[in-house]
């Protein structure tokens, strides 16, 4: 329990009378007369008003009641975020002023500030003050930037964990040309999530930028490390357009995919690589084909017959104007759906050899995929052509076999 000496009480009263005047001026809660008298416009005032404090620190606050209201200091009580504070923490400073001491403060429960409230005997709210308790911001980290079609620049960063937890922190992204530029401030925040900023135009190419993030809250400010980048090295693009997925004749385990390269980059010297991913309708698991290279068509093989597949493509433009960097993948295109043909051969109990044929087919397929995996996995033209030839041969041989089968039965 805090002990108040006569001296500390006096100095507190002098101090708080000064504070009372400041609060009067700042918050217009009372009227100051030339004589020095203060007439309150509210039933009570708390000082300090809206203080900012470090976690673990202490606060001495006072509630001064309007003397005309016939309220006595010892009738008052305090709450913090609606919870009544124990009377051991109270000190009556004079007939109309009640103090409270809060030690070892925790971080604010909400970013709008903890509510320290002075109540009358009947529980009526007489005055309140918001306490902002927290820590100074920590250095923002992991700044990553990308340029969509070389026209803009968007950057994202990670906030420091502790500084953001209790107090609202402001972030400012700044950038300048490396050797001779002046500081610029990004204006469009939260475009790609809470810690992001978008620079829409006026960006130079072939000269590196220095980029950094400044974080500030009520308790201080800090700056991230500076990253250096050339816009050409961080270019991404729109997803490929005109994605078409179609059947390959009657081949029940294949689909053909073709698309157009992103139009925005057509005029620039660049290379592109593509990735395809596909999944069956009732699954969330995507299979990725990542060695499509720079082709704008591909054959998906080994699919289930009579099944709907969703297909998406993305593009990675690299080597723009000779950039040596790896490039950044675009978003995936909207899913395009297509189904594989149903298998003509319905396995049935009437066909005594169907089980045998299936196992033969499975063995042959296994062998073929083993070979493809080893020598030409993915979508190389060679493997597709070979597979097509192999399947045509297989279907022919099945037909011949089926024509013979009825005779066998008889």
């Amino acid at each position, binding site marked *: 329990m805090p002990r108040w000496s006569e001296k500390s009480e006096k100095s507190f009263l002098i101090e708080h009378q000064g504070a009372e005047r400041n609060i009067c001026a700042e918050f217009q809660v009372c009227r100051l007369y030339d004589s020095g008298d203060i007439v309150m416009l509210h039933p009570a005032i708390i000082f300090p008003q809206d203080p900012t404090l470090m976690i673990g620190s202490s606060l001495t606050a006072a509630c001064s009641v309007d003397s005309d209201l016939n309220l006595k200091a010892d009738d008052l009580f305090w709450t913090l975020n*609606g919870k009544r504070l124990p009377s051991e923490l109270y000190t009556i400073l004079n007939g109309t002023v009640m103090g409270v001491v809060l030690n070892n403060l925790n971080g604010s429960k909400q970013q709008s*500030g903890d*509510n320290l409230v002075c109540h009358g005997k009947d529980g009526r709210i007489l005055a309140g*003050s918001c306490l902002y308790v927290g820590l100074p911001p920590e250095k923002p980290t992991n700044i990553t930037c990308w340029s969509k079609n070389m026209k803009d620049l968007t950057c994202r960063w990670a906030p420091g964990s502790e500084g953001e937890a209790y107090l*609202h922190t402001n972030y400012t992204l700044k950038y300048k040309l490396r050797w001779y530029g002046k500081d610029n401030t990004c204006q469009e925040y939260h475009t790609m999530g809470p810690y992001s900023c978008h620079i829409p135009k006026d960006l130079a190419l072939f000269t590196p930028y220095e980029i950094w993030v400044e974080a500030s809250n009520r308790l201080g400010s800090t700056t991230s490390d500076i990253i250096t980048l050339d816009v050409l090295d961080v270019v991404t693009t729109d997803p490929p357009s005109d994605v078409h997925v179609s059947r390959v004749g009657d081949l029940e385990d294949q689909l053909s995919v073709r698309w157009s390269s992103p139009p925005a980059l057509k005029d620039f010297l660049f290379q592109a690589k593509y990735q395809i991913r596909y999944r069956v309708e009732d699954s969330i698991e995507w299979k990725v084909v990542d060695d499509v290279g720079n082709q704008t068509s591909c054959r998906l093989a080994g699919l289930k017959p009579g099944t709907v597949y969703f297909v998406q493509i993305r593009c990675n433009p690299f080597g723009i104007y000779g950039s040596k960097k790896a490039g950044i993948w675009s978003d995936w295109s909207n899913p395009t759906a297509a189904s594989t043909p149903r298998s003509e051969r319905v396995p049935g109990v009437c066909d005594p050899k169907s089980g045998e044929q299936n196992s033969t087919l499975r063995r042959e397929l296994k062998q073929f995929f083993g070979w493809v995996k080893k020598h030409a996995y993915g979508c190389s033209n060679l493997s597709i052509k070979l597979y097509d030839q192999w399947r045509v041969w297989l279907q022919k041989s099945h037909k011949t076999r089926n024509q013979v089968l009825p005779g066998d039965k008889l």
Partner: protein
Amino acid sequence: MDANGAHHDPFALGIQQLRKIRVDLIPLMEKYVQIQGFDDLDFSRESASVEIGNWTEMAAEERLIANLSAFLELERQLKRVVEEQKDLLHPREHVFHGDLHSLLGQVGALREHLEQIGSILGLCDQWSSDITEVGATGGSMFEKKVRGYKVLRDLSVWSVRSVRDLRKLQRERERYMRESMKEVETLMERVETEIGRE
């Protein structure tokens, strides 16, 4: 009454607008209380600024003017709150701030509609619909937080009261229309009788 009915009946349309405000206010107030840390703070002893007074004895015109003045003042106050909260709310609460803004739009639309009803009832120009006088933003953070709460709470009280008021006005209007029709019918009958005699 269905949407078509509301389209023709200005009172029904006003009631619909009030119901929408009421429905939107419920989650908005819950969120406001949570953001400002007012969950455990008891405001029940703070009287609402809605004075019932001699409400039951009010004449139709008085009732409408009382509603108009209330919503005009609530619109002014809410505008002030929206401006204050723009600076106070965390950027991640932009959806909530958008909802407050949308509520302000709804209150403005309702106030305009009440003015139209006033014109229908022949109560033109008895009020000033200038909402540009927002009132100086100021005061401590706590005051701003409480101000927002009180405005939402008053709006909630008025959104219930006004439905009753509009219903009452609607009934009175219908009764007046019925009586007027009856008078016309009586007059027609008398005219027909007179013609018959001749």
